[in-house]
């Protein structure tokens, strides 16, 4: 057995334990009358109850419209941003690159609430300002409409899209664009005919990812759609899990619905493979040396800067300002001049004086660091074996690593509880921070494999072939050739998982015990205890923590490069 195959086998076994076993339990719950995997009996009633329900087609239609719209918004804005920041001489690109990730640190439910403060037809400050300024009789924005939901969800996905596309943008040989420009092509044409086709694998990967995320996401539909009875599948899942009349979660129905999500995921995976099967067409990183030179925007420089700045005002400054505003209020109140009299630091003082903060912060940091490192390592290995080494069974490895995204995080948590209760004597992780690490690593693995896989497709095999010709071992080629070239993708994965792990809530709540409290669970304690302004204060500190981690990672990265 070659080293490749041995590593693939070991990784396959690990993924079976991490992914296939929990998924199996989720699917088992779908055929249990009681809905719990260890309940007795078999039934198909859960499938009938889900798919033959009278409102299901309409629910599915609304969900697909929401998911497709959100994906489109995220892809269009994310692609343009990634290109402008990474490929052009955009003024302030470094600052934009640092800021783009900030909304990711904020729990989505707080962002969604922030948007009700901004664009609610009744209390939204944007509506009030525009109505007062322009003399409009009706509010121009309605954040509770389907368009409003799509807009907010799309915006929340833009940072992830940028992170997924940025490494691919960075790895593009500028000579393609320079040749086109020298041949008289306009910049728009260069973007359309050169940049976008070369980015296809990364864009396709991002599209698959965003589509599935939008199908299962709850925060935005739960905050903006549910109040006005605009239901999607995830609000139905929330109802089955938290609010079912029987007093016990209807995991059987959730498992049955997960089958549909898995089918959509497999279909998207097949489409992705089809779109990228001509791998050679996307290899932009070859043996020929190139220096990453930004494409001059010329006369478009300041108009592009204005557009990008406008995006940051809308997507970053406005919601984060509302978050800060809320954190300085004694209770929830929309921004206004009159409310300035209520400003207080009490929420921040209360947060910092809370005896549980130190423990929760330490747990969060350890969980985030370990989960981020584990995902980057595992996803890198999966992508290397599947894309670069093309090992037998690579498609299975790829599917296993992508599958967790189709299952709501709560169901993964449920399955993990069973797994680690059963293996308690050998692996005593139930009730500790380590079961949360495992849950996050499982949940975030799909992002890592999409991002790193998309980046690896761009590498021409001649790079590794040159190493082999020079007598280097496979391990040395991996270490000296492949890893440095995919380092931006690995770093982006690490940062993305770190930010998400710092804010993740649903699994942490499900798996919480005495000694594994995290900062988001503390935030949730405030939020669900009727103190959203205190929750906002925690959100502000989370954003600051992620910003600090980001700056630190850049500093370390720069020193490493200098060394």
């Amino acid at each position, binding site marked *: 057995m070659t080293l490749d195959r041995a590593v693939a086998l070991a990784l396959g076994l690990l993924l079976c334990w991490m992914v296939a076993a929990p998924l199996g339990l989720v699917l088992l719950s779908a055929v249990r009358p009681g809905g719990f995997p260890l309940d007795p009996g078999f039934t198909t009633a859960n499938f009938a109850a889900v798919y033959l329900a009278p409102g299901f087609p309409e629910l599915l239609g609304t969900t697909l419209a929401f998911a497709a719209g959100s994906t489109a918004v995220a892809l269009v804005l994310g692609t343009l941003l990634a290109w402008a920041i990474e490929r052009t001489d955009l003024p302030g690109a470094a600052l934009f690159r640092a800021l783009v990730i900030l909304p990711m640190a904020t729990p989505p439910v707080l962002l969604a609430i922030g948007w009700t403060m901004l664009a609610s037809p009744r209390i939204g400050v944007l509506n009030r300002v525009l109505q007062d300024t322009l003399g409009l009789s009706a509010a121009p924005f309605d954040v*509770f409409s389907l368009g409003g939901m799509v807009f907010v969800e799309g915006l929340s996905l833009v940072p992830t899209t940028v992170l997924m596309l940025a490494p691919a943008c960075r790895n593009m040989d500028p000579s393609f664009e320079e040749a086109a420009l020298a041949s008289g092509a306009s910049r728009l044409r260069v973007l359309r005919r050169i940049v976008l086709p070369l980015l296809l694998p990364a864009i396709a990967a991002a599209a698959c990812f965003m589509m599935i995320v939008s199908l299962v996401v709850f925060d935005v539909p739960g905050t903006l759609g549910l109040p006005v009875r605009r239901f999607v599948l995830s609000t139905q899942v929330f109802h089955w899990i938290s609010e079912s009349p029987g007093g016990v979660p209807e995991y059987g129905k959730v498992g049955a619905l997960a089958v549909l999500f898995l089918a959509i995921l497999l279909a998207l995976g097949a489409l992705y493979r089809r779109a990228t099967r001509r791998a050679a067409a996307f290899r932009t990183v070859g043996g020929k040396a190139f220096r990453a030179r930004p494409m001059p925007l010329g006369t478009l420089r300041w108009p592009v800067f204005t557009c990008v700045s406008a995006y940051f005002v809308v997507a970053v400054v406005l919601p984060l300002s509302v978050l800060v505003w809320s954190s300085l209020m004694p209770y929830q109140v929309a921004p206004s001049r009159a409310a300035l009299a209520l400003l207080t630091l009490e929420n921040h003082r209360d947060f910092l004086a809370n005896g549980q903060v130190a423990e929760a912060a330490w747990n969060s940091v350890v969980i985030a660091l370990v989960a981020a490192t584990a995902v980057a390592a595992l996803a890198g290995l999966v992508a290397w074996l599947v894309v670069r080494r093309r090992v037998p069974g690579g498609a299975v490895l790829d599917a296993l690593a992508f599958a967790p995204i189709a299952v709501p995080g709560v169901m993964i948590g449920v399955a993990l509880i069973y797994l680690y209760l059963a293996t308690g004597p050998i692996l005593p992780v139930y009730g500790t921070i380590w079961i949360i690490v495992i849950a996050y690593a499982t949940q975030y693995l799909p992002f890592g494999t999409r991002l790193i896989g998309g980046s690896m497709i761009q590498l021409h095999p001649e790079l590794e072939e040159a190493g082999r010709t020079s007598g280097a071992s496979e391990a040395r080629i991996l270490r000296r050739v492949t890893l440095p070239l995919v380092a931006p993708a690995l770093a982006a994965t690490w940062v993305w998982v770190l930010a998400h792990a710092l804010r993740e809530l649903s699994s942490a709540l499900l798996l919480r015990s005495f000694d594994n409290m995290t900062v988001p669970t503390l935030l949730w304690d405030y939020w669900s205890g009727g103190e959203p302004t205190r929750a906002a204060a925690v959100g502000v500190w989370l954003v600051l923590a992620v910003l600090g981690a980001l700056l630190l990672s850049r500093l370390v990265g720069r020193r490493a490069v200098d060394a």
Partner: protein
Amino acid sequence: MPEEIAVPTRRTMLLAAPALLLGRSARAQVDALATEAAGLGPVIWYESTPSDLANQVAAAFGRRYPRIALRHVRDSGGNAMSARIIQESQGGARTADVATNSASVFWPLAQRGLLEGADWAALGATPSMAPTPYSLLATASVFVLLSNTKLVPEAEAPAGWDALLEPRWRGRIGVWQRTEPFVSLAALWGPERVADYLGRLSAQLPFLFPSTFPLAQQVAAGEVAAGVGIYHAALPAISRGAPLRYLVPEPAPISSLYSFMPKAGRNRPGGKLFSLWLATEEGALAYEAATGRGNPLIAATRTAQLLAGHTSVEQKPEDADATLPLIERYDAILRQTGQAAPSK
């Protein structure tokens, strides 16, 4: 048959509240429980209050029983508690020694054979405090009508159920997406009258909220002008000066929460002892001071005073099997009637 909880009287208080002071036999049993519990390690308590507040209850319990440690694990709401107890019981792991939740949560657990019964009467509890062997009344949520004091003058605030059906509230009110208050109302009004009422309320296009805490906050923020909320969920905003008022409607639906003990707990005597202590005046006041939620059968609580003069109504916990289809039916009316609320 509807169950009406009468306005608490001094007599009922004397019977219900000081369970630990009743009779030599009961006291001896309680003392025996305390001795046994002290040797079985900490008592694990699953409950939904934020831990920093629940720890105040644990501290008060610790003052009464210094040799017994109470450790609170926060339940994340909804049906999460029942799911956790089922999983831990099925997985052979330690679960709660005592938990606090509504009948809709403990009843399915009892039906699965996961709860331990107790002879509460022998321990001094009255039938209204212990309606089933599996449960002892701990506290209750009281449904109230909320309104924003800046948007709604006091004279115009909705004071009764019919007021919410007036055209002026169309698109301006919020309700909890769970139809619990209306299920409780059905105990007095009957299922059909409530279904009809709920249909007309849904035609008012109320905002649905996933929980009563954000509902109260959104009334305070002015997103909706009024709503059907829960008294204790409005307290955090009110205590911080939010422009929020509440009125107890007539009849006043309540949702009782009970203590119950999973069989898979390891310090069940401790769980039973804590359940009994929560049902005393000392326990009820400590719990209410921390959470805002009190025991309606203990006169000294703010909750009992709030309900004084009102007809408080709810379904019997032992009728849970019959109540579940009602919840399903009412949920469907609230979720399916009408289109999205108007944008202004």
